[in-house]
């Protein structure tokens, strides 16, 4: 069968145990299927199809739950991954501090040009918060990685995060393609327009209300 999509991106969710990676991928926490057969077994990965600037993009999103106990993810797991969501829990200081270790792990094991994004999850639990949004932003600036606070429970910014990461991967790929296809080689439909999202949007607020 002919290929029915334009891009296929493999994405990984990485971070300490308990930060909510599985909830980001798997929303069973409070709905009717909590006791279902599926939640008992657990989800390995999901395929999602999104539209990015008129292109059909397939995302294959992997949970690393269970492996993070070893505080490291093996090279095999990173193989072929083009984007990584680094997840910490805003109510857990340690999980935030460990983001640096996870970045090091990625640098040692993943391909050098993998796109990354930091997610401060559980931002709905403001009363228990240990990591301010500003510290998250600071870390993101330090590593030059995009950042957003999310609440998997309230589905806040989760979709936004995936779209943002996917858009960045797409932009990087197109840039590469252009570099290998010198000017003129492509059709006249090519535009020099900057397709990146608005610069203000990447520090989207965690506004639950």
């Amino acid at each position: 069968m002919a290929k029915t999509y334009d891009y296929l991106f493999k994405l990984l969710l990485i971070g300490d145990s308990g930060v909510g990676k599985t909830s980001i991928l798997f929303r069973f926490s409070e709905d009717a299927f909590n006791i279902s057969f599926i939640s008992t077994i657990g989800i390995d990965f999901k395929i999602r199809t999104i539209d990015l600037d008129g292109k059909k993009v397939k995302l294959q999103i992997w949970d690393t739950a269970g492996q993070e106990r070893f505080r490291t993810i093996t090279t095999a797991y990173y193989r072929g991954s083009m984007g990584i969501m680094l997840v910490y829990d805003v109510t857990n200081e340690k999980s935030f501090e460990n983001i640096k270790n996870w970045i090091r792990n990625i640098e040692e094991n993943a391909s050098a040009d993998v796109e990354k994004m930091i997610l401060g999850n559980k931002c709905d639990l403001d009363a228990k918060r240990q990591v301010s949004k500003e510290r998250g932003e600071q870390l993101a600036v330090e590593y030059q990685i995009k950042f957003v606070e999310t609440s998997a429970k309230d589905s806040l910014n989760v979709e936004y995060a995936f779209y943002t990461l996917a858009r960045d991967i797409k932009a990087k790929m197109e840039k590469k393609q252009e570099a290998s296809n010198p000017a003129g080689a492509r059709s006249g439909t090519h535009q020099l327009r900057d397709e990146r999202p608005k610069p203000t949007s990447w520090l989207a607020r965690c506004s639950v209300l």
Partner: protein
Amino acid sequence: MSDTEIVQNKSEEASNDFVEDGSNKLVVKCKFCGSKILEKKTGKFVVQEMNLPLMHQDTRKEGELQSEKITEFYHVENMYTFENIGFTLTVDNYKYLSCADCDAGPVGYYDMNTKHSYVALSRVEHA
């Protein structure tokens, strides 16, 4: 799981509201939340017997997996044909398929040997 050919014609009649030219005439969606699982004409109709665990397990019967025999499936060779779908961890060389949005399932299964997926017609909605 074999004997696909033998019963093919008989059951195609039963499902022809949904099947046209051997594939799904309509878009395949989740019965519960409407999440799009397959585009039109992307799943090949096949008849084969497979026991699939029930979507709602009776939790009073502890440690007992309740399943039902299903015979009509859409065969999907390449997993990236799916619009939105979840794959469970592997159990006995199979992964079960679930709705990517509400996690309802199993709506079908994935065979680790052949790398092919099968969506049960009775567990999805056609729209």
